[in-house]
């Protein structure tokens, strides 16, 4: 029976999907195009406008340069698309520019592109949704006060649609995207027809502009750079190849081609119309260039409003491209150890939910910080994209030189040329956006943020590689097969049913050394009745400190091969979050204990309702089934297995849940190599819900806590620097939380110190 929270989740997100359904979530070209193209096409909506803004500095006469400049941008766009088609074919695993840079230009280049793209995706969401919000406010000026709230609400909606799955969100967004394309073509064709006798003039035609600058090469470059905003969005397809239907590379390449044709034709068409309707655009203008052209061609009629609506919609949808690109890129970076593992896992709907959520939160933060000011946000925009364009193309050149496929020289030349041009644009963008007076010179934020993100990614990488080294390090391998002894110290806050179970459990391991400690001397009398054979010591002084001191003393006196386990029994009044947070002191103590080197913590929770007053008299469970949770075979796991052996259980096995099917054989082989004389079970977890899967598996043993107990041994990584802890351990936490209220289940953490 599902819990009410589950039903709500089901209504909002749809039913959970099993891993076997991944193939069904892949996108056919028809849906992939609107998902990825919306960014590229929407930037086309304001690219012409950006060129005009720069040209206007020279005066009205320079405005006709918009057409040749657009042609130049179109040529660059074509080159970049050709480059990316090759990238997509060479790297079908996705990751596009990042993988190219990493493999061909080195680790730092990969780091740079990864960081730049991540930041850029976040900006894409902020910019496009803010632009969409602006469009809505233009239609309904009363909402101006609430622009930030409106923008955040829009972010929320798009996030939700994406959490349901790319295919679903793609279907929703296909209509406005295709609608926009059709509408623009209608605009262009109608424009050509109407221009036969002489083009209708825009409302701003004939306006006078004060020349503020001379027509220099630098100015032309600035105008060209402004127009290159039309290129943003192309890289997303290369990042997102894994979401295409098979054959993935071919479909992605085809989609790029279609995008190129559409983009270029629409861009040149609109620029031509802009020139011939003599639009004069300044920052003070109320109507955008697109709106002015549409108004000139269609009058104030129905089509005009259609175009405005679709433009607003596609600006919002441009964010959707980022919602597909960012999570896939984050998962690839996580696989390469540059981002936390959490970004690798797919959620209920088989999308990378963690990536989606982080993207949404970051974009929302930016919107709040910049107060939904589009102009401020746009300044940050181009740097990341053009950095990745440049590195990707030069990376491809290096690849040609390496692989020397037939015809490589021509391809390499094209890529080198394209890379140089985007490099120049990058330079121009950086310089101009630093220096422009009066405008928000915000590009420096990105230029500072990118290296910071690079540094963070590098630390994550260094940490994970250090961990992998430690886990495989031959010197830290547990000593071969010499059984150590188990020593138990039972913590006795109160002599109750849980303490009785702890005694029974410890005794069942046949350990020669079981003792107990308490902070309350009053426990001595009841303890003597419960377990006269187990010595109880009262500790004085500050609780946690004296306990730790006592334990450390004992541990130091023991041989290295032995294990010292602290048993923490607790009675829980009921099941629920409240119980978990009710005893913060105990949790703090457990957390401290887990961080102690060479001390295991064994938790015996007992829900009051499960207490059997007759049976719960320090009864030794006749059956103790031990399962060691593993996901790989390494030193931490081997140590956990050794520990499990000291419990003298009825049986031991290692169990792995939710492994990728391809990994099944590898895990099996590694297990055999390690020569562990215990069975390994690999159990499926098709909905990737580890807690549930473990719980279901345990039920087979029918633990009752009195006669039959299941002990779950979990190897936990304890890192030396607190801040690294966030990169690990969420698995242990999930399992512990899920099993806390299960009767007859005991959880032990075997910490492995890194």
């Amino acid at each position: 029976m599902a819990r009410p929270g589950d039903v709500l989740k089901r209504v909002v997100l749809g039913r959970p999907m099993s891993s076997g359904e991944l193939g069904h979530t892949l996108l056919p070209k028809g849906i992939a195009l609107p998902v990825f193209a919306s960014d590229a096409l929407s930037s086309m909506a304001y690219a012409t406008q950006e060129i005009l803004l720069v040209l206007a500095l020279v005066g009205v006469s320079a405005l006709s340069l918009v057409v040749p400049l657009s042609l130049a941008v179109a040529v660059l766009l074509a080159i970049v698309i050709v480059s990316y088609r090759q990238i997509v074919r060479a790297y079908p695993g996705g990751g596009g520019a990042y993988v190219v840079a990493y493999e061909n230009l080195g680790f730092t280049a990969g780091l740079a592109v990864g960081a730049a793209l991540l930041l850029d995706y976040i900006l894409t969401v902020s910019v496009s949704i803010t632009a969409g919000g602006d469009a809505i406010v233009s239609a309904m000026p009363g909402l101006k006060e609430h622009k930030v709230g409106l923008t955040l609400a829009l972010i929320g909606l798009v996030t939700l649609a994406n959490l349901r799955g790319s295919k679903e969100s793609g279907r929703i967004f296909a209509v406005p995207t295709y609608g926009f394309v059709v509408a623009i073509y209608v605009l262009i064709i109608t424009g050509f027809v109407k221009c036969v006798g002489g083009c209708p003039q825009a409302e701003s035609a004939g306006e006078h502009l004060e020349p503020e600058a001379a027509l220099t090469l630098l100015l032309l470059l600035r105008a060209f750079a402004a127009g290159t905003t039309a290129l943003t969005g192309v890289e997303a397809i290369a990042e997102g190849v894994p979401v295409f239907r098979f054959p993935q590379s071919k479909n992605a390449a085809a989609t790029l081609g279609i995008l190129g044709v559409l983009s270029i034709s629409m861009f040149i068409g609109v620029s031509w119309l802009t020139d011939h309707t003599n639009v004069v655009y300044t920052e003070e203008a109320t109507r955008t260039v697109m709106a002015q052209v549409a108004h000139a061609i269609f009058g104030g009629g129905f089509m005009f409003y259609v175009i405005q609506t679709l433009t607003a919609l596609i600006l919002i949808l441009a964010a959707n491209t980022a919602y597909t690109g960012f999570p896939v890129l984050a998962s690839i970076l996580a696989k390469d150890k540059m981002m936390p593992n959490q970004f690798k896992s797919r959620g209920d709907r088989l999308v990378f939910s963690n990536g989606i959520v982080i993207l949404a939160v970051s974009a929302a933060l930016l919107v709040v910080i910049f107060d939904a000011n589009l102009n401020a946000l746009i300044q940050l925009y181009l740097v990341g994209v053009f950095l990745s364009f440049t590195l990707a193309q030069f990376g491809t050149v290096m690849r040609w030189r390496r692989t020397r496929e037939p015809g490589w020289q021509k391809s390499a030349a094209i890529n080198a040329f394209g890379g140089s041009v985007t490099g120049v644009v990058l330079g121009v963008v950086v310089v101009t956006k630093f220096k422009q007076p009066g405008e928000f010179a915000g590009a420096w934020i990105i230029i500072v943020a990118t290296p910071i993100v690079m540094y963070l990614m590098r630390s994550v990488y260094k940490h994970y590689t250090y961990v992998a080294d430690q886990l495989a390090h031959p010197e830290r391998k547990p000593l071969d097969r010499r059984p150590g002894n188990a020593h138990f110290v039972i913590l006795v806050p109160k002599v109750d049913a849980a303490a009785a179970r702890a005694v029974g459990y410890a005794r069942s391991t046949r350990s020669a050394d079981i003792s107990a400690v308490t902070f309350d001397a009053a426990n001595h009398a009841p303890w003597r009745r419960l377990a006269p054979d187990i010595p109880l010591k009262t500790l004085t002084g500050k609780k946690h400190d004296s306990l730790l001191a006592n334990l450390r003393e004992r541990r130091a006196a023991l041989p290295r091969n032995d294990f010292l386990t602290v048993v923490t029994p607790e009675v829980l009044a009921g099941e629920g979050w409240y119980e978990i947070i009710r005893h913060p002191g105990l949790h703090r103590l457990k957390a401290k204990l887990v961080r102690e080197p060479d001390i295991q913590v064994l938790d015996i929770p007992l829900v009051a309702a499960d207490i059997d007053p007759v049976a719960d008299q320090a009864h030794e469970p006749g059956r103790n089934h031990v399962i060691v949770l593993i996901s790989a075979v390494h030193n931490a796991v081997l140590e956990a297995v050794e520990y499990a052996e000291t419990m003298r259980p009825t049986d031991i096995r290692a169990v792995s849940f939710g492994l990728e099917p391809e990994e099944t054989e590898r895990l099996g082989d590694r297990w055999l190599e390690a020569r562990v004389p215990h069975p390994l079970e690999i159990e499926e977890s098709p909905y990737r819900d580890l807690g549930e899967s473990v719980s279901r598996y345990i039920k087979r043993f029918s633990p009752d806590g009195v006669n039959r107990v299941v002990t779950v041994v979990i190897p936990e990584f304890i890192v030396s620097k607190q801040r690294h802890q966030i990169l690990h351990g969420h698995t242990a936490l999930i399992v512990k939380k899920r099993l806390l209220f299960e009767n007859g289940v005991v959880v032990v953490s075997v910490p492995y110190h890194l």
Partner: protein
Amino acid sequence: MAFLGDLLEKLARPPQELRAEHLREWAASVPGAIPIADAESRCSCKLAGVIQNVRIDPREGTGSIEATIFDGTGLLVVKWLGRQKLSGIRLGAGLILEGTVGEGRSKQLQVLNPEYQLLPAPEHG
């Protein structure tokens, strides 16, 4: 009101049930295979299912491998003795086998060293 009740019931249905249904359909499409729920001890049958659990036991003599398959109607343990390497037996793969059904641990239906065929994961959903 009844419609709302039905809708809520459908939403509350655990996804495992839907999956079991799809697996039943898939298994039924395998020519000659009978549902695991219909298999009796000592029958020599053809059965099909998806591998949900793989167990490697390096202890028993020269080792053994077990795969537990599910076809939407029941569970069956397929055991190979004298074998350690998995070679293609993996989670999610489809398994079609012919052999004599017996009883293994805890009265679980089991087939020893059958003739078998591995298939790529049957996609459901």
